């Protein structure tokens, strides 16, 4: 029978599958669970239905946007936290480089290479209002679809808030 040979071939197959999965999830797309309610109601809306409270949402994160780092207002992105590189957050881009974003206290200018992110649930979201603009190099992908739970499967739309952001790209149209 040759048990070492069987073990070796199983190990080789696992290694190959692992390497291929890692490459695909780095370069193309991956599926991640979303924890927390900072993006309610887009992800994890805490309604009273059974399926919603059972498990977290699973979303599809595409990595093709990392070739050019070209994002638009309203994109939902996954990025490493500036204060702890091991944590990843999911938030929406509200400001791009060169924009002026209005917070409660003042108006912030987004420097080159950075973006301003905020969660959809402004009441309970730790985002750029606490840790400032996020360097675009920390972005790990863009969320395009919700894959779980089944009754909320669909694309994630762009939502822009024109009244708070003065963007240099929209000003140049006039």
């Amino acid at each position, binding site marked *: 029978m040759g048990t070492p040979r069987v073990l070796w071939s199983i190990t080789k197959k696992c290694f*190959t599958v692992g*390497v*291929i999965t*890692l*490459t695909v999830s*780095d*370069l193309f797309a991956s599926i991640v669970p979303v924890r927390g309610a900072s993006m309610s109601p887009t992800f994890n809306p805490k309604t009273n239905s059974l399926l919603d409270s059972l498990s977290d949402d699973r979303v599809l994160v595409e990595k093709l946007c990392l070739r*050019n*780092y070209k994002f638009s207002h309203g994109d939902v992105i996954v990025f*490493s*936290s*500036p*204060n*702890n*590189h091991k944590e990843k957050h999911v938030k929406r881009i509200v400001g791009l480089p060169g924009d002026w974003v209005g917070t409660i206290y003042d108006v912030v200018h987004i*420097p*080159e*290479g*950075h973006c301003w992110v905020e969660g959809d649930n402004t009441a309970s979201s730790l985002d750029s209002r606490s840790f400032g603009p996020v*360097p*675009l*190099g*920390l*972005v790990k992908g863009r969320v395009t679809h919700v894959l779980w739970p089944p009754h909320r499967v669909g694309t994630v739309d762009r939502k822009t808030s024109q009244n708070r952001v003065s963007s240099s790209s929209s000003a140049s149209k006039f």
Partner: protein
Amino acid sequence: MRQWRIIAKEAMTRASIIGKFLCLLHVTDAYVLSSNHVLGPSMLPTLNITGDVVLVEHLSHRLGKLGSGDLVLVRSPLDPKKTLTKRIVAMEGDKVTFSLDSTRSHNSRSLVVPKGHVWIQGDNLYVSRDSRHFGPLPYGLIEGKVFMRVSNVNANSIAFGFVPQNEFNHIYWN
């Protein structure tokens, strides 16, 4: 008809071997070891102005084993498509004292590196754009640690050498 099937099967086998090799190449390049071409005057005299090929390992920063004096490859906070090579001068919690332009003034500033960030500087302080200009760098932007350099000593021979660490004799910290 059967011949086409045999050819197609052989083509698929060969393509899958190439595909698996490319995936392995990507995983090694991103998670283990890679070679990069770095150039610019900001790391003189450690690295050449016309360019060096350096070997970068991608394990230390994931394991948290980086410290002051390490040469690292980082993604620029000002342009996510560019990578910079600089030296870590201070880790989080350390106090850094620096002056922006030592030829013009004796003023110096001090600050404590916040949590989750590092302070990087080029060895050639006069032309390097580093943390003295854009502030502390989030740890998540670090891509790897440079540990070896390939340089051509003259037209006929190539020298491999370890890059000197601990070259920070012009900054004080507590």
